[in-house]
C-alpha cells in the first residue's frame, strides 16, 4: 500500500503489511475519496441544487411580491384618500368662495337697487318740485292777472270809469298785490 505519510507504526511493527498505522494515508483511498467528492459535487451542483435554488428564489420573490403588491395597494388607497380629501377641501373652499361671492353679490345688488331707487326718487322729487314750482308760478301769474282784472273791473264799476288799459291803474293793482303778498308773508 502506498502511503503519503511515513507510518511509524508500520516501521515499528516490522513493516507488517496487515497492520499499517491508522494515520497512514493510502493513496488509493485518497483518490477514491477525491473522485467521490467531485462526482457528487458535480452532480449535485449542476443538476440538483440549481433547481432548488431557483425555486427558493422564486418563493422569496413570490412572498416579497405579495408584500410588494399589498404595499402598492395600500399606497394606492392612501393616494385615493389623499385625493378625496384634497377634493373635499377644494369643494369646501369653492362652496365657501361661492357663499362669500353670493354675500358680496347680494350686498352689491341691494346697494345698487337702493341707489337706483334713491336716484329715481330723487328724479321724481325733483320733477315734482319743478312741476310744482312751475304750476305755482303759472297759478300765481294767472291769479295775479285775474285778480287784477277783477279788481280793476270792480273798481271801474264802482267809480264808473274804465280803468282797463291805464298804466296807472296797473301800477295800483300791482302795488296792492305786493302789499297783499307782504301781509301774507308776515
Amino acid at each position, binding site marked *: 500500500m502506498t502511503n503519503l505519510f511515513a507510518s511509524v507504526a508500520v516501521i515499528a511493527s516490522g513493516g507488517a503489511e496487515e497492520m499499517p498505522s*491508522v*494515520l497512514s494515508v493510502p493513496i488509493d483511498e485518497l*483518490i477514491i475519496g477525491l473522485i*467521490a467528492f467531485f462526482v*457528487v*459535487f458535480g*452532480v449535485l*451542483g449542476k443538476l440538483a441544487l440549481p*433547481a*432548488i435554488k431557483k425555486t427558493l428564489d422564486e418563493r422569496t420573490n413570490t412572498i416579497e411580491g405579495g408584500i410588494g403588491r399589498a404595499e402598492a395597494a395600500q399606497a394606492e388607497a392612501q393616494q385615493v384618500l389623499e385625493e378625496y380629501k384634497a377634493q373635499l377641501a377644494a369643494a369646501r373652499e369653492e362652496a365657501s368662495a361661492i357663499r362669500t361671492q353670493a354675500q358680496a353679490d347680494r350686498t352689491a345688488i341691494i346697494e345698487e337697487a337702493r341707489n337706483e331707487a334713491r336716484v329715481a326718487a330723487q328724479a321724481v322729487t325733483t320733477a315734482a318740485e319743478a312741476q310744482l314750482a312751475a304750476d305755482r308760478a303759472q297759478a300765481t301769474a294767472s291769479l295775479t292777472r285775474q285778480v287784477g282784472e277783477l279788481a280793476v273791473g270792480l273798481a271801474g264799476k264802482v267809480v264808473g270809469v274804465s280803468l282797463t288799459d291805464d298804466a296807472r291803474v296797473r301800477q295800483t293793482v300791482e302795488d296792492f298785490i305786493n302789499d297783499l303778498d307782504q301781509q301774507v308773508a308776515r
Partner: protein
Amino acid sequence: MSAEVVIASGADCHLMSGCGFPAPGAEIFQFDAVWTFHVGSLDLHITKITFLIILISVVLMAFFLYAFRKPKLVPRGAQNVGELGYTFIRDGIAREAMGKDGDKFVPFLFTLFFMIWLMNFVGIVPFLQIPVTSIFAIPVAFALIVYLSWVPLGIYRQGFIPFFKNMMFPPGVPAPMYVLLAPIEFISNIVVRPFTHSVRLFANMFAGHLLIASFSVATFYLISASVVGILGSVASFAVTIALTGFEVLIQALQAYIFTLLTAVYISGALKAEH
C-alpha cells in the same frame, strides 16, 4: 482483521475462560481488499470502505436528485427534507460565515457537509458499522480539497502579496509583535490548518468508533452465568447503546464543524480578516 472478526472471536473468548480481554485496536479500521486492480504502477484496492464511499455517493445523489427533481413553490415530501438541508447550509453556514457572498459556495459546502455526515453516519448503521471518516485518508482528502480551494481563491481575490500580508500582519497590533505574530500566523494558517482540519474529524470518528467497538467486545467478553458476568455484560451493553446515541450527535456536529470551518476559511480568503 475486520471489526466483525474481532467481535466474532470475542464471543468465544470469555473472562471466565481465562482469556485476556481482546481489546479492539487499529485492526478494526483495516479492511481486506476484495478486489485489486492496477493503474500504471498504482494498486487500487477495493475494500469495504470503497464500497461505502460509492454507496454514500450514490445514495446522496439519488436522494437529492429525487427530492429536487421538480421543485414546487409549495414543497412536499422529499423536497421538504431536501430544502431543510439546503437552507441549513445556506443560512446556517454559508451566509453565517460570508453573508450574501456565501450563496455561490452553497453547493460546495452542501456536498461537503452531506458527504461527511453520511460517512460519519454509516458508523452506526447495522452491518455497515464503520465511519468512513475514521479512515484518515478520507478526512485528508476533504481537507485537501478545502485547502486547495481557499488558498488559490485568496490569492486570486486579494493578490499574492496582499493575501499573505493580510494573513500574517493583522492590523491593530503593535509593530514589534509582528516578529512573533507573523510566523505564527503563517504556520497556523498555511501549515497546520489542513492537519487540524482533517485530524479533528478523523480523531473524533476514530475514537468514537473505537469506544463503541470496545464496549461491544466487552459485552460479549464479560457475559457468563455469574453476577459479575451478567452485570458487567449488561452495563457494557447499556454503555454501547448510550455511546451509539452520543455518536449520532458527534457525527452531525463534526460534519457541521468541518463545513463551518471551510466556510470560515473561504470567508477569510474572500476578504482580509480584521
